[in-house]
């Protein structure tokens, strides 16, 4: 009787382990198989030949240039706001933080449409700019603006946390030693928040280089001008699937490097 209940317990325990293992296996397969299928669909020779095609190269170059520029703009515009939100408890701070966070959860089409309505020829700003002879829509600048809009809040959020982690007593010490607020920020606050700031830069760069929805609405899909890698993948799908796959592999490689960098930085900060 006793041995019967013990073997049925062992049996049900084995079944639970089997089901658990199966779920874990299916989950891993679900997330890796689609990416693996891309690698299996193309030979290394095809990949290398495709990468050298002018349209593919211009998409890669444009992506790198626009995402780097957008990230630089994000850092310049976002750092003061992140620092302010970390250090000053002004009235309406939480409201401002929520407003800035909206693009993170906004569907890309809505982000694109809002930029179009703002910057289009008959838009809130676009009409004035148009009168001055400045067109933003369907230009490389529009690509960068879309990337700044969707990727910036990720940096601001991360940078705010990084600044909040720095004990203000270090800033006080720096001030009493003769450093003004700007020198204190450069020599003390920013180096102490370095790991978090770099993480923020990497995350926003990753979001910018992968940006698709808002970009296609506000900048179109013009080769050499606004066709970044994600847009080129979409554009080549009908005519040149190999190019789409090659570009996807490039983006996967960039994502992988970014994830490794974030893991290294997280380890350092821990």
């Amino acid at each position, binding site marked *: 009787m006793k041995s019967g209940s013990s073997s049925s317990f062992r049996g049900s325990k084995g079944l639970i382990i089997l089901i658990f293992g199966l779920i874990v296996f299916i989950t891993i397969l679900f997330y890796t198989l689609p990416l693996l299928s891309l690698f299996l669909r193309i030979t290394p020779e095809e990949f290398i030949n495709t990468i050298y095609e002018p349209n593919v190269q211009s998409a890669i170059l444009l992506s790198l240039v626009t995402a780097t520029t957008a990230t630089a703009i994000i850092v310049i515009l976002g750092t003061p706001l992140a620092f302010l939100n970390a250090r000053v408890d002004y009235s309406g701070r939480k409201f401002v933080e929520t407003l800035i966070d909206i693009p993170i959860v906004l569907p890309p089409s809505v982000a694109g449409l809002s930029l179009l309505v703002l910057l289009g020829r008959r838009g809130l700003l676009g009409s004035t700019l148009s009168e001055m002879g400045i067109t933003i829509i369907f230009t490389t600048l529009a690509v960068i603006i879309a990337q700044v809009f969707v990727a910036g809040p990720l940096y601001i959020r991360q940078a705010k946390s990084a600044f909040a982690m720095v*004990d203000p*007593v*270090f800033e*006080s*010490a*720096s*001030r*009493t*030693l*003769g*450093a*003004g607020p700007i*020198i204190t920020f450069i*020599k*003390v606050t920013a*180096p*102490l928040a*370095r790991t978090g700031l770099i993480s923020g830069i990497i995350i926003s760069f990753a979001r910018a280089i992968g940006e698709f929805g808002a970009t296609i609405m506000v900048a179109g899909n013009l080769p050499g001008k606004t066709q970044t890698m994600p847009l080129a993948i979409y554009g080549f799908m009908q005519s040149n699937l190999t190019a789409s796959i090659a570009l996807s592999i490039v983006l996967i490689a960039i994502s992988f490097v970014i994830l490794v960098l974030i893991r290294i930085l997280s380890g350092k900060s821990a």
Partner: protein
Amino acid sequence: MLEVQLKKSLRDFDLDVSLSVRSGEVLVLLGENGSGKSTTLNLLAGLLNPDEGIISLNERILYSGCTSVELPPEDRNIGYVFQNYALFPHMSAFENVAFGLRRRSMASVEIHKRVQHILDDLGVGHLMYERVTNLSGGQRQRVALARALVIQPDLLLLDEPLTALDRQAREKIRIELREELVKSCKPSIIVTHSLKDAEIMGDRVIILAEGKIIWTGQPNELEKHSGSPQVRYISDEYISFSKIAID
């Protein structure tokens, strides 16, 4: 000579302090936690703004509520040893001590000479290139003191400088610190809640309670509790006032 009259409304009470410290004199601010001791130091250093009053250091006005003079901390030339020292953790002992000198546009050879000299003087010269995070409590205390002294400040502020040390190191450094402060010939203010610190390091003691001075006198008067009608009980390590208790 430091002359101070300060008022500031705080969350729990109104701080109202008047004091003066001569050059070479060590004034000890004694009181319980939250009595306004550290706030007084921060007001003197310019890290907090008073509501009204005046701060004059060697006849230079650092703050005046009447004439709206309010020098920022970086223009006051005050050496401040923070509680837990606030040494920059991303820098070496050398870089920490050199930080204030670099802000004074000094030649790098001169900076190196002065930093080496003061760290040697305080017995931590051999640790000059160590990251401060690798130093012991006593070593950090010395580096923090070197960082505050090397800029040749007009006033020295020390906020609980011995709290982070163990009992043995405390006994030793207490005497050394007193010697260094006297040697500096600057007016110094030490904040502590330790009666022993006050007795050994101070020339004069002020006891603060809820932002007000409730007793002023010599350290030895603490033991005799002369001129202190509020004193209820006193022993070698414990003093009980009508409002506060200090050990």
